[in-house]
């Protein structure tokens, strides 16, 4: 009898351990390269916070104030020292962050990446990646424009050399297909400069009928440029990411689509996956969980505006 | 005897300004030569020429009878001319020891590994200052904690220690009270007794008179002459220096305005 009791107690004890810690005790740290003051990343953080509330776990969100890879590596090191149950990171620069991420994995901390790093995460020992892959998103955009009959297009790239952006233009080109010609318009990040460059390109070649921007930094000056030369609404115009001006332009019908990578999901899903992994060892089958491209069109723009005001898109 | 240092017919121009014109000035060993003059007389300029800060526009400098040219204060120092400036001699934030040896720090070791020999330096500072009658309790204390007179003495002791042959003191007592001025004056006498030639610049005759052997008067860049102590009474020097004529004219003018003012007041009170 005593032995049976002891055995049952041990079994229950063992089972409890096999179940992992209770949700209330789980602590997850998110280290991203975008500070929550940035409008894009504040949506991610909202996703993180909501997931923490829904799952009943505690989550901290850390990021350097500006894009600063060495600082981010230090934050990851500090996160490892705090011994959380799980770690979520974005990987904009595998060279700079690789050592710290590998150290986390070596310490036995499960790591999921989000937003950037879809092509490097596996090599670092990261379990899964939640985000939008650039090439596929660009490809989707190219396909849409081809369906709209675009034959000559430009891809406005404000940071040539940024691998992610380059991949978007590359995908776009391939998506448009053989029948169309595309070129990359390389610009800087100064809005006035971008506007002038776009105006010049469009004036030099009036046959251009498709324009793709890679984000608000490129899209907003392009809107101004199109307006100024009176061709707003006459070219097939699409962009990556959302902003209030982009949504307005969509609602007015002057834009064909905006690609929403749905960054809310990039904040929300990793928390869910990690919690279930920490407790039960469950993990989705596919290595990359795509959160985009979500195409926002003039028809759906209104609803998106309302969600954007709530910090969800 | 050959003067220790001598300026022969020296002039200095700054653009169109004539700071000094045709000055001849010499100091002999074991002598205190006082350089007098009101503000703007050119005393500082002459001193800067001797200490290597300026080069004369005309004339020559001689040290022990040989003609010299100074390209920097370092050259003057190397020639044995030590200058103690009015305000800019010691560093209040540094210790006595470090101040004493600034620019001439004793070192031990070789090449890259040579270091400032602070032990030797501190010992030397204590000794030198006590020779001049000042007990430095702690040579590593900041000079800023010392009184004005003591600071001047540190500067002078430094000059004497480093083998100065000629000591040029630019207004050493001007910022000091009577008692502290006395400390410095006594020190000057001791330096003279050790054979140094001392140039003592001041516009205060009362400080100068007791210790000086000779006086030279500068007025607006020109020399009014050189006199030995016995030759001219103190009052005469004072009057030459302050410009007795100008003073009397000023007195008359002031008296005149006072009378005028009184007359105006009387007139307005009547009406």
């Amino acid at each position, binding site marked *: 009898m005593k032995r049976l009791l002891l055995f049952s107690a041990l079994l229950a004890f063992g089972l409890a351990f096999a179940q992992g810690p209770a949700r209330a005790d789980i602590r997850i740290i998110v280290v991203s390269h975008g500070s929550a003051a940035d409008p894009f990343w504040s949506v991610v953080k909202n996703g993180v916070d909501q997931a923490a509330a829904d799952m009943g776990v505690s989550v901290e969100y850390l990021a350097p104030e500006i894009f600063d890879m060495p600082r981010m590596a230090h934050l990851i090191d500090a996160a490892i020292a705090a011994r959380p149950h799980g770690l979520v990171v974005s990987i904009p620069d595998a*060279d*700079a962050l690789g050592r710290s991420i590998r150290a986390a994995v070596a310490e036995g901390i499960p790591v999921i990446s989000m937003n950037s790093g879809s092509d490097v995460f596996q090599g670092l020992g990261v379990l899964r990646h939640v985000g939008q892959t650039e090439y596929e998103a660009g490809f989707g955009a190219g396909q849409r424009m081809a369906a709209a009959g675009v034959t000559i297009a430009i891809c406005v790239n404000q940071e040539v050399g940024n691998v992610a952006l380059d991949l978007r233009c590359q995908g776009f080109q391939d998506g448009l297909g053989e029948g169309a010609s595309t070129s990359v318009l*390389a610009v800087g990040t100064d809005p006035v400069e971008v506007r002038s460059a776009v105006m010049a390109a469009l004036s030099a070649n009036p046959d251009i009928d498709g324009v793709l921007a890679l984000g608000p930094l490129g899209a907003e000056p392009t809107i101004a440029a199109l307006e100024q030369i009176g061709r707003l609404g006459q070219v097939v115009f699409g962009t990556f990411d959302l902003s209030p001006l982009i949504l307005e332009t969509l609602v007015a019908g002057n834009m064909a689509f905006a690609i929403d990578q749905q960054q809310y999901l990039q904040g929300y899903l990793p928390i869910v996956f990690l919690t279930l992994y920490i407790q039960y060892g469950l993990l989705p089958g596919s290595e990359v969980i795509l959160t985009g491209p979500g195409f926002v069109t003039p028809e759906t723009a209104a609803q998106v505006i309302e969600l954007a005001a709530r910090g969800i898109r | 005897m050959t003067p220790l240092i001598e300026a022969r017919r020296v002039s200095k121009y700054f653009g169109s300004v004539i700071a000094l014109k045709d000055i001849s000035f010499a100091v002999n060993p074991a002598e205190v030569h006082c350089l007098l003059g009101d503000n703007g007389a050119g005393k500082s300029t002459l001193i800067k020429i001797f200490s290597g800060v300026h080069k004369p526009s005309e004339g020559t400098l001689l040290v022990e009878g040989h003609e010299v040219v100074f390209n920097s*204060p370092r050259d003057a120092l190397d020639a044995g001319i030590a200058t103690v400036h009015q305000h800019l001699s010691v*560093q209040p934030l*540094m210790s006595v020891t470090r101040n004493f040896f600034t620019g001439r720090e004793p070192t031990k070791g070789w090449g890259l590994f040579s270091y400032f020999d602070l032990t030797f330096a501190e010992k030397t500072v204590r000794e030198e200052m006590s020779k001049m*009658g000042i007990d430095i309790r702690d040579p590593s204390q900041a000079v800023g*904690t*010392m009184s004005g007179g003591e600071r001047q003495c540190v500067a002078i002791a430094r000059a004497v220690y480093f083998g100065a042959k000629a000591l040029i003191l630019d207004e050493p007592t001007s910022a000091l009270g009577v008692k502290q001025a006395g400390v410095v004056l006594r020190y000057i006498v001791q330096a003279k007794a050790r054979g140094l030639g001392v140039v003592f610049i001041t516009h205060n005759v009362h400080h100068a008179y007791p210790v000086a052997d000779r006086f030279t008067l500068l007025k607006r860049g020109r020399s009014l002459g050189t006199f030995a102590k016995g030759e001219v009474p103190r009052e005469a020097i004072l009057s030459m220096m302050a410009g007795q004529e100008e003073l009397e004219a000023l007195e008359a003018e002031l008296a005149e305005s006072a009378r005028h003012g009184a007359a105006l007041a009387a007139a307005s009170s009547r009406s």
Partner: protein
Amino acid sequence: MATRAKPITDERVRKVGIVNKLLSRPELGAVVGAILVFAFFSLVAGDRGFLSSRGIVSWLEVSAQLGILAVAVSLLMIGGQFDLSIGSMIAAAGMVIAISVVVYGWPMWAAILLAFAFAGLVGFINGYLVNRTGLPSFIVTLALLFVLRGATIGFTRLITGRTQVPGLHPQAEGDWLAFLFSGTLFGLPVSIYWWLALTILATWILLRTRFGNWIFATGGDPEAARNAGVPVQRVRIILFIGTAVAATIFATLQVLAAGSADVARGRLKEFEAIIATVIGGTLLTGGYGSAIGATFGALIFGMVQQGIFFTGVNTDWFQVFLGVMLLIAVLVNRYIRHRATVAK
């Protein structure tokens, strides 16, 4: 004035002297501050990672990187000058290394040596301009802050078409010089050893050499120093070269750790270095200060910047803490200096 009998006064003076000497040391405020900050974070966050071996390495590493800059800056500030171009120098030096290796195919050691030669040039320019123009170093180095940063961005865009140059990790493999600037030794990152070595070197130069005395004199009163025969202009140039070299050491460490150079790196580092130096007891007006103090100032900085995270307090409050700490440090240091230099 009679000479008092020596033996009795000497012995009494010696005892009081030691206590007074300690109290009047410029680094006292920073050492006490560091102890207090360490105690605070150990109490509040010790078990949350601050005292774990990983945690300690994380804040030591941040302190080390800043400390490398701070000790050089402290020497310069004691010598009476500011260098606001350090941050831009960090980006520039990093880019010199990266572009030489990645674009022009230079071996890593050659690129690193080139960066140091460049540092010598920049330091010389800073010093020469300050000497020649008589302008405050604040202005001269501020101008260089912009010139260097702009040139870095301009040349990098011109040569590579982008603002970041990656791909350095493979080139650093097996390179004899890169080896000195990367990796760990006995579990501690190499930056910590650089920090300690530079602190010792700077302190030795400042307190035990002739040149150190010249630094104090040049910063306290350059006229008096010049009159005493100190080569004030040469001292300044050497000090500016010192800060540029420190920035290059920082840049090399950072570039080899991150595997890339970025035109935006190093921003605001000049101010962090000045803060650490001032916390460490150096006067803004020059002539007084301590390299050890600057190192402790950097230590406080690192402990706070990483430590705040361990306490769970929102890291946004870090800057509030920094400002308050700076004020307290300066007030404490002013009191100490007052005690040390006022006439008794």
